[in-house]
């Protein structure tokens, strides 16, 4: 991927734009590394653990770990080592060029054997040309900057010891106390300065350790070996891809990002790496996305299977199967009436109690910072459609469904048959009250229709007549009440004449022919009202209050759905232009957040899995259509 150019002065000038970050990880957790060399987001030991570095949510209090030029002005560029998740941040000055190679070794096979997973974050600093003076600053702030910690100095580094976890920073350069620059909690962290000539290197290893750990010296041979094995892991993994179409680099970057967002022990994929990056600066639309949405299931399984990553698809399928096979009493938190929650944590847990962290100011002052997610207990009927579509896809392209899973799935269908006509909160998790959303009914139709397909193709026992009656009843109702004859479009919900980008999925899930007149006029209406310079709003917030304050940007996922809908409708030139434009909104590394603001800035949690899933699906579809 291409690099970026950002003239910088001083060690920490303020909040970086969201798009100025790259991501590394070890399939348990991730770190966001800014183009200024600062790790400003890192939760340890897992995606949903409390943050240790959280400067993206509070520049002063959140904690960070930066390695960059010590003084003066410089230009920075950032790129991935090709076909890997090894991130390189480069610094260019008249006197010299230096670079930091950031990576987290993937410790395969560590789970289940009693071995401690180290979650090593390795920063290998190299002198490339001339000479460069560099400075390392590290200020951990454990438990979202709520816990104090002690800093213990040893021969080969320091141990940061907090009540919840301890981290060691092992350094070949003597570390000094940063007391003079004490942060909000009085601990100034540690720092060091060093100079590298061309060809010289210094490696810093941060890892989770027991409380009584004594830091050790990592030899250059050892870190080079870790570097090479990490590169080999990612290249070996990506070599499984069967995608040979257009935009392969972007598709593969999306695949590598999705893999980074996958929790290896369970196969679950988090919706995004972060919490509370705002959907609009100051909007209050700040949510914790470090959980696994059932909704993402069908899209994930579809995208992974399309690219040839059958192992990941199977692992995610296992995670999903475990969810609907859990006894009802265990899967349902208080207040949830369906057999499934909207989302779970990466281990399958359902207690995602939402709370606000008032001591953090939020990204660029965009409070509140939330952890947990209150939408977990909402009724969102569409999730059953996405779930059963993923079962259908895996049954067809992966491996056939097992009897016990089928029996449990039949019970889910029975539940849908009795509940699909309820009002719910819908796909966008609005907090403005329940409605009869068209999309929820559409996906209820998908649930029953796909179950019928599985039963028919596999000869599995099912109450087909009753299921067909339900399927057709949903279909007729959508055509009668979801269709608004005055607007000549399918609308957001039955009591509204507002449009909603979620109906872009109608032809994608094969509910309606992509050239059906009702569909084409809906597509025209969406193009007129929800599309701005090729970017798609999910709905008109002003005209359709969602119970939330503030503005939001365009929804990248919806733009990719729009591409696919245009392509399937035969409007290929238009689809291709929208897709190519959308590619220009990726950051310098090919990463997307959830939304795009009016001036092209990334908004919302980052990087977001759903957007990358939609990119893969749109690229695949468009490439096929273009021939």
């Amino acid at each position: 991927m291409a690099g970026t150019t950002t003239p910088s002065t001083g060690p920490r000038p303020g909040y970086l734009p969201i798009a100025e970050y790259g991501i590394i990880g070890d399939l348990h957790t991730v770190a966001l590394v800014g183009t200024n060399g600062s790790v400003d987001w890192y939760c340890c030991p897992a995606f949903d653990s409390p943050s240790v570095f959280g400067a993206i949510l509070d520049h002063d209090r959140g904690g960070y770990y930066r390695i960059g030029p010590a003084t003066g002005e410089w230009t920075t560029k950032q790129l991935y080592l090709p076909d890997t998740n090894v991130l390189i941040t480069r610094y260019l000055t008249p006197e010299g060029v230096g670079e930091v190679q950031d990576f987290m070794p993937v410790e395969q096979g560590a789970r289940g054997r009693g071995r401690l997973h180290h979650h090593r974050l390795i920063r290998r600093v190299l002198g490339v040309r001339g000479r460069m003076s560099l400075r390392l600053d590290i200020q951990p702030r454990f438990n979202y900057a709520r816990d104090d910690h002690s800093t213990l100095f040893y021969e080969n580094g320091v141990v940061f010891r907090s009540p919840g976890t301890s981290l060691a920073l092992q350094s070949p350069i003597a570390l000094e106390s940063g007391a003079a620059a004490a942060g909000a909690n009085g601990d100034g962290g540690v720092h060091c300065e060093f100079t590298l000539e061309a060809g010289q290197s210094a490696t810093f290893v941060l890892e989770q350790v027991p409380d009584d750990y004594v830091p050790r010296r990592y030899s250059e041979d050892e870190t080079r070996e870790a570097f090479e094995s990490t590169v080999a892991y990612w290249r070996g993994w990506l070599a499984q891809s069967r995608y040979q179409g257009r935009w392969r680099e972007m598709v593969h970057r999306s695949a590598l990002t999705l893999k980074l967002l996958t929790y290896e022990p369970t196969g679950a994929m988090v919706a995004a790496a972060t919490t509370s990056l705002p959907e609009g600066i100051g909007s209050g639309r700040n949510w914790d996305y470090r959980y696994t949405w059932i909704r993402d299931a069908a899209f994930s399984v579809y995208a992974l299977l399309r690219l040839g990553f059958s192992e990941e698809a199977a692992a995610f399928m296992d995670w999903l199967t475990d969810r609907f096979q859990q006894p009802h009493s265990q899967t349902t938190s208080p207040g949830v009436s369906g057999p499934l929650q909207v989302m779970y944590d990466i281990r399958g847990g359902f207690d995602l109690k939402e709370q606000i962290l008032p001591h953090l100011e939020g990204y660029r002052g965009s409070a509140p910072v939330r952890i947990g997610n209150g939408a977990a207990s909402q009724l969102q009927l569409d999730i059953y459609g996405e779930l059963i579509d993923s079962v259908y896809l895996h049954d067809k392209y992966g491996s056939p469904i097992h009897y016990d899973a089928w029996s449990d799935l039949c019970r889910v269908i029975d539940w849908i048959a009795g509940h699909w006509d309820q009002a719910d909160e819908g796909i966008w998790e609005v907090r403005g009250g329940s409605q009869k959303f068209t999309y929820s009914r559409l996906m209820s139709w998908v649930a029953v229709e796909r179950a019928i397909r599985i039963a028919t193709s596999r000869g599995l026992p099912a109450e087909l007549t009753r299921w067909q009656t339900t399927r057709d009843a949903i279909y007729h109702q959508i055509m009668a009440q979801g269709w608004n004859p005055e607007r000549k479009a399918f609308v957001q919900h039955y009591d509204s004449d507002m449009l909603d980008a979620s109906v872009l999925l109608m032809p994608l899930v094969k509910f309606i022919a992509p050239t059906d007149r009702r569909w084409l006029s809906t597509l025209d209406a969406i193009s007129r009202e929800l599309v701005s310079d090729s970017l798609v709003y999910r709905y008109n917030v002003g005209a359709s209050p969602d119970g939330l304050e503030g503005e939001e940007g365009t929804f990248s996922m919806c733009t990719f759905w729009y591409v696919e809908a245009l392509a399937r409708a035969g409007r290929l030139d238009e689809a291709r232009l929208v897709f190519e434009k959308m590619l220009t909104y990726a950051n310098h590394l090919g990463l997307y957040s959830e939304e795009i603001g009016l001036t092209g800035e990334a908004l919302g949690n980052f990087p977001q899995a759903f957007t990358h899933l939609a990119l893969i699906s749109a690229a695949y579809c468009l490439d096929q259509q273009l021939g």
Partner: protein
Amino acid sequence: MPLGGDTAARLGRLGIFADLPESELRDVAAELDERSFPEGGWVLRQGDPGSGLFIVADGEVGVVIDDDVVATLATGSFFGEISVLLGEPATADIVVRKPLRCLVIPPQRTEEFLLAHPKVMYRMLQTEARRLRTVDQARD
């Protein structure tokens, strides 16, 4: 010893004293001498008779054997232990690379000190084991 008002807290930041409760840290502070050395000078010369166990509280020294810098020691490190424990002359030059403030246990009090504070002795042993492991790995 004149280590200042927050002595216990400052000692507690050094890995070798990491496990001691505050009351014991205060006792330890009373048993240690503090010495400062300017940049560029020597703390120990190879062949000097045992001068005590030195713990780096602030600054940086180089360990020099036969004109080769074999290691750099900074805050939290210690040196002089081999000479003290074996009753032999210093095995290396210790050169000050950044203004040094260190804590010193005189050779005649070292045994008594370590026996009185076994957790400190255990931490010392851990560090020695790390050094040994590093040497072994380098040989491999």
